[in-house]
């Protein structure tokens, strides 16, 4: 389903940053350093299993 990556990125940022703009910048930097640039993904972006795998790993730590 296209757009899954964008949704996952938004979920990670929302859950981890909790509306703190400084934390939001740090989390975006962490994502970019993982090779996932949030600016490059939209709700129309194709699903990439490698990227999804990395994001799933990050989301597991939130539980």
């Amino acid at each position, binding site marked *: 389903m296209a757009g899954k990556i964008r949704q996952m990125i938004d979920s990670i940022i929302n859950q981890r940053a909790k509306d703190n703009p400084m934390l939001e910048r740090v989390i975006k930097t962490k994502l970019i*350093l993982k090779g996932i640039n949030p600016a490059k993904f939209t709700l129309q972006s194709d699903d990439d299993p490698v990227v999804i795998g990395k994001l799933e790993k*990050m989301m597991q730590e939130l539980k």
Partner: protein
Amino acid sequence: MNIKTALSTKENVDEMVSDIAGQLEFFDAEMVLFFASSAYDPRSVSKKMQDSFPMARVFGCTTAGEIGCGKMLDGSAVAMAFTGEAVKDAKIEVVEDPRDEKAIRAAFASFESYYKAPMSEMDPSKYVGIILVDGLSGAEEGLMELIGDLTNVTFIGGSAGDDLKFAATHLYANGKSYKNGVILALLQPGVDFTFIKTQSFRNLDKTLEVTKANEEKREVLEFNGKPAAVAYADAIGTTVEEAPKHFMHNPVGLVIEDEPYVRSPQQFKGDSMVFYCGVMEGMELSLLESTDIIGDTKKAIAQAREEMGGLSAIVNFNCILRTLELKQKNLTKEYGELFSGVQAIGFSTYGEQYIGHINQTATMLAFK
């Protein structure tokens, strides 16, 4: 004064430790962080330092040069002592294999048990981590990525050096010496703190996209679909043969909100290019050009001082490549003097850690 530094240029371990301890006599140290040249026998440094401060948590590592008391030095040792008011609490964990995810998670579980709070919930304005890792491990990227997933608390630090011998670095904690591994220290400071990340480069706006890489080996095979060495040389405007002379002054960077996270070239390997830092397929790296380390570092410290309303102490993890450039330009005295107004120690690192693993940067933990 809740944070105090000491410096020793004594060549003998016993004399060095005695010198440092003497300078910190009557200082009620709860924690002592130290950086020592690899010239000091690693089998005895840690124990002797811990024995000299029996009531304190003592940890540190070997270096590729030291910074302290307003100077940049080689072959010396520097120490920073913190009272219980400066650091309310500290928990130090040593993981002997920095690639061992299970052991890193266990260290974090230990932090959670000690502070009685989940790492994922800890307030990053109330806790800070210091990380010292074997600079020859090549494990820093995975380590920082895992730490970044586990917590919002910032872990800042550097990769231990060994005076450019590239034989063995050492980490010191618990009165012991560790040849491999990582020290993770989770602190609850009693004073405000901030981070300084400064690197002195201009973005030349030439993009080198990593189109093929051996990520495990920090090796780029192709930039922009061309052999990496050729693409880099073309971007510099020189030949492949001459290009290595440009490595120090023209590294590449992952530019995030106009700020480069530098990746320094190490060597050409055939047509490939090996870096001192992680490079991933798909990364769009920008070619950089070095600028003014003294001016930029001075500005960064001044900015932090202004934002915090004052600075009392800085721990500086300063890339060895910056140190070498400063030596080349005869500017080590000027760099050391940038820190003479505060209690400051630091060392020349084989890599720096702040959010991720980076090169040719000074990452600093600054206390109000």
